[in-house]
């Protein structure tokens, strides 16, 4: 059990590229933190800085209140799981898990107890004598996790551990990781670009963009109150609709498309140009004509459990996604009557993209 504290941690590469622009963060005991963001946002760099595989240009990183900026990776008491497993191909799975313990001078008997215990937890007992290449992708990833847990480190670091697995296995392993982490209660930092993984695993989500933490919060907070247009667009699938809008003079409405007026749940400066964000699942369809929005159907995608319709709201808003439960039949050009609850409308500043 340990805390990880980042105090204005920065990373500048020798060529002048600034990968991390100063991040403040405190990860609590046993917390599962997920770093999520598009490729090149610095999430892996940040993880590797915590691991000690990348140097820290400025600021501090502490584990359990001890600054570890110059501590070697092996001495930070952390364990890391890599995307490509990084198992030693010439060692069998037992030796793969035992290697770190051997280097730390544990006795043979201790190593044996720890490895067998880890193998039991991960259901790898039958595979200990085999080499990594004789295992499936999921089993290899479990060996990699076994290598991490035998040492009972203070912090687990995961670098996109599920990216190399196929879709079904990914879901299973996701549950397994969550389960394992809760059972062992070890502070974890997990990097992914997959927002579903991020939402399901995280106690706390850190959405990164261009070396900056755009938002830090619980997954539900991030989903319900995205701090910026970037976060709003990144979290949620299909992505949030963004429309150009203008706040009415009474400060209580915003106009989008061809004069569609939407009610707001909080006052905003009148006449201000804003970006309006609406999640596809928050558009409600009305059969009684009570909705404020009328829109034509451009295209329909039926996924079975849900139906996605692409709608035309008029000027500057001709590709709005609507997500409905179940199957629906729409003709092209059919007019739908819709509404959005006031508390589901997000407004963002046009210039800065910040939430209003």
């Amino acid at each position, binding site marked *: 059990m340990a805390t990880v504290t980042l105090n204005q941690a920065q990373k500048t590469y020798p060529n002048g590229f600034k990968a991390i622009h100063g991040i403040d963060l405190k990860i609590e005991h046993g917390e599962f933190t997920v770093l999520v963001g598009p490729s090149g946002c610095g999430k892996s760099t940040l993880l590797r800085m915590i691991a000690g595989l990348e140097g820290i240009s400025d600021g501090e990183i502490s584990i359990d209140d001890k600054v570890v900026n110059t501590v070697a*990776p*092996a001495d930070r008491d952390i364990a890391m799981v890599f*995307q490509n497993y990084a198992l*030693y191909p*010439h060692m069998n799975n037992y030796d793969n898990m035992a290697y770190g313990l051997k280097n730390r001078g544990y006795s043979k008997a201790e190593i044996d107890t720890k490895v067998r215990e880890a193998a039991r937890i991960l259901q790898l007992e039958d595979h200990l004598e085999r080499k990594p290449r004789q295992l499936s992708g999921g089993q290899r990833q479990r060996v990699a996790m076994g290598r991490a847990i035998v040492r009972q480190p203070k912090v687990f670091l995961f670098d996109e551990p599920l990216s190399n697995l196929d879709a079904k296995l990914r879901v299973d392993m996701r549950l397994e990781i969550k389960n394992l982490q809760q059972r062992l209660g070890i502070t974890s930092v997990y990097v992914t670009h997959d927002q579903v993984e991020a939402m399901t695993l995280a106690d706390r989500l850190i959405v990164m963009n261009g070396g900056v933490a755009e938002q830090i919060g619980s997954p539900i907070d991030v989903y319900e109150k995205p701090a910026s247009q970037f976060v709003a667009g990144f979290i949620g699938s299909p992505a949030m609709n963004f429309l150009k809008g203008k706040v009415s003079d009474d400060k209580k409405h915003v106009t989008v498309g061809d004069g569609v007026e939407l009610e707001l749940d909080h006052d905003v400066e009148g006449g201000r140009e804003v970006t309006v964000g609406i999640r596809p699942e928050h558009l409600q369809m009305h059969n009684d004509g009570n909705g404020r929005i009328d829109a034509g159907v451009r295209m329909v995608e039926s996924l079975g459990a849900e139906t996605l319709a692409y709608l035309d709201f008029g000027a500057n808003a001709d590709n709005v996604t609507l997500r409905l439960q179940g199957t629906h039949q729409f003709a092209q050009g059919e007019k739908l009557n819709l509404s959005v609850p006031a508390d589901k409308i997000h407004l963002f500043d046009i210039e800065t993209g910040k939430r209003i």
Partner: protein
Amino acid sequence: MYQSKWRIFTNHTILVLGSLFMILPVWIAFASSTHTREYIFQNGLQFWPGGEFFTNYGAILFDAEATKGRVTALEMLFNSMVLGLGFAIGKVIISMMAAYAIVYFRFKLAVPLFWIIFSTLLLPLEVRIVPSYEVVANLGLLNSYTGLILPLIASATGTFFFRQFYRSVPDELLEAARLDGAGPLRFFIDILVPLSVTMIAAIFIIMFVVGWNQYLWPLLMTTDDQLYTIVIGIKQVYNSLYEGGQIPQFPKAFALTIMASVPPVLVVVIFQRMFIKGLVETEK
């Protein structure tokens, strides 16, 4: 792919002819080495083995007189073996370590140093043979195994091959090892060397054969018959064929040639198995 019978037939004909072309001279040398010298002198090269195999080979292996020197073929084989093994093992070790330094320790001069090493590939031993001789002579290493092996041990080719191989090893392996508490030496011995087994076998084969076949260098370095390698021995035997008005020792010269070629062939045959096995099993 579908292959017609005609095509299989022509392919095999070409292969069989090619093989015969390569093997026949060796076979004739072997067959001729098993006759008496009088018989060869009268009847020329022989295609079928005669009855003198044990006599001729026994004489050349154990009787210094038969090789026209003060050293038996067995001793020369031993010298060649020392040279070949020392040469190959030394080159493998030195080039592995050099490549390890160049790839994993990003010191400032790594790149220029690598290119300097690499450019020496262009210079054959013959170019630097006089200064090399001078150095070895000043060190007092003439007529010693050390003098024979040490100056040849640095290898640009080997360093280059190992460098290319190390660069293909995923970085995560190094990082995982670092997290597992392995220092540079541990990582090299526990991870990199076992992963390089196939490369080691390949370079060992090549270098052993090259070392075994060295002619000019041992000729310069050794004035003492006791240190003659078998390649030099062959030369010496052929030189003395016509001396003394006796009937030339053709069968024994052929026997020596055959013996000189057996160990490299064995090394290739034995290690090639490991080499291929490694190729099939290794996976990154």
